[in-house]
């Protein structure tokens, strides 16, 4: 850290420079009054720095915080790892660019894990922009790092279908009722890996990356619950994770919550399949834990300061 601050002294200078007016205000009106009348734009600035500084630090040094995978991350990893090469898995990417920052690292890790295990990947989406998320992940992971995987034989993008949970309802019994072509317009009978696949019940595992409705809750209600042989694991946003915890462990075999979950899962995948020098794109979750740490500490500090002011004012009124 010391070396970083010495080398990147100009970042520290800009940081201090931006906060000079705030320090001057503290000096002129007093700390309590300055805090009481604190303009929210100062809070915005602090949040900007608390995110920007760790991103820059991790970008320059390449160092990340150590991560200890939780039991849920282990169970998610084990569900995929127990599968044999050639087993079919359904990957439903039900999110959009708004949640990409939170969910893309786990989508990337899921696809890497599937590719390493040589599983047959069937991509689909219940969100209109989901196919783009699938395409981005394929372009990021499969095309450059697993060029031996052939579209139509090892992975296929079935694309988006409107209808939300009704889509799940139909494809769990007959996938071809809704999907007559893949997202490129190729007929199902012309896709080799679709031979013999008639319903989602044939999938050895469903992997859902979900940012809301329709998403993991619908997959639990319309796929994993009525068909007990279907195993489901999910990666969700931080907001959504507490809502789907009640489905763990029987209806939901594994759950990754937000960036923390992604970082834990990434660690397991990288430790097992990453090699000595893993590509930084497979460490995105771990890298994003840095900004999350500082931002969380800032929020805690703001709450503590605000409560200190509250009790100080209450005490003053009491006197």
């Amino acid at each position, binding site marked *: 850290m010391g070396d970083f601050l010495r080398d990147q002294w100009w970042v520290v200078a800009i940081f201090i420079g931006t906060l000079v007016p705030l320090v001057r205000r503290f000096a002129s009106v007093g700390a309590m009054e300055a805090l009481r009348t604190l303009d*929210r734009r100062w809070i*915005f600035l602090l949040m900007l720095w608390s995110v920007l500084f760790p991103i820059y630090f991790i970008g320059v040094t390449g160092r990340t915080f150590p991560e200890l995978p939780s039991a849920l991350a282990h169970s998610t990893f084990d569900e995929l790892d127990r599968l044999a090469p050639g087993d079919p898995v359904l990957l439903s990417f039900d999110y959009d660019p708004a949640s990409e920052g939170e969910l893309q690292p786990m989508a990337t890790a899921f696809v890497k894990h599937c590719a390493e295990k040589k599983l047959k990947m069937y991509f689909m989406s219940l969100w209109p922009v989901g196919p*783009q998320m699938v395409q981005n992940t394929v372009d990021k992971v499969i095309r450059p790092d697993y060029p031996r995987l052939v579209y139509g034989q090892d992975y296929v993008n079935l694309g988006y279908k409107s209808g939300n949970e009704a889509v799940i309802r*139909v494809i769990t019994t007959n996938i071809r*009722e809704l999907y007559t072509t893949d997202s490129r317009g190729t007929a199902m009978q012309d896709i080799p890996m679709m031979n013999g696949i008639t319903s989602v019940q044939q999938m050895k595992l469903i992997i859902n990356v979900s940012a809301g409705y329709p998403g993991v809750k619908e997959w639990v209600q319309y796929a994993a619950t009525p068909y007990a042989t279907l195993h489901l694991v999910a990666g969700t946003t931080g907001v959504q994770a507490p809502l789907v915890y009640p489905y763990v462990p029987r209806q939901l075999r594994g759950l990754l919550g937000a960036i923390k979950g992604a970082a834990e899962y990434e660690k397991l995948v990288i430790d097992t399949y990453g090699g000595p020098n893993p590509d930084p794109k497979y460490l995105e979750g771990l890298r994003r*834990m840095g900004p999350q*740490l500082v931002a969380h500490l800032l*929020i805690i500090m703001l709450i503590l300061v605000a409560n200190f002011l*509250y009790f100080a004012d209450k005490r003053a009124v009491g006197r």
Partner: protein
Amino acid sequence: MKRTVPLLITAVVGFTLIGAYFVPYTQSWGETVAIWFDVLAAIAFILGGGNLLRSHLKRISDQQSGWAYSIIVLVSFLGTLFVGLGKIGAAPSPQFPDYGWSGNYRQTGSAFWYSYQYAFQPLTATIFALLAFYIASAAFRAFRAKNLEASLLLATAFIVLLGRTFAGVALTAWIDPANWQGFRYFTGLRLENLTVYIMAVFNTAGNRAIMIGIALGIVATSLKILIGVDRSYLGKD
């Protein structure tokens, strides 16, 4: 007639779906209804597009406040529709190289791809990222330990906020049986373990109660709609 037919359709479809869930013989009926729903959902996009055009054109013609934004909406909507349907810039599919329109509209390098990659994606990601700033501001202005419940909520928030980062691990790493054998009974107090405990026990219990309550409410409301007691969804006319 105007109200009876929709009521009848609702009742028939609703009871068919309920029956299809419980009676194996009628399972295929449920699938057929679900396919109809998917077709209707696709048609709803056309209705939605039409409604968007109508409401924004009206705003522009009436020059209501913010009508300039409506122009932006319409230009973006029609522009995306045009480049997507027209597959502008998309190369023909290798299967049908003689047909210019056979390519994928999302193909890398197509106009739709550009608009998605360089307009839609950064804009939506930016809007969502603003949330962090408002959460920080709200943390300073709203979260006060005014009573016992609020204090408990704050304490829980602190544990989860710390437990979801390396700070939680670092702060309570000293609760380690390697430091003192007696700590083996207290490892559950480490912040990362407390976070898991809060999520798995308190959160799950609370959410399950809420979910069961909501489910019972949905059953009651659905039955009222299916048997025609609640007709509010049909509107006033």
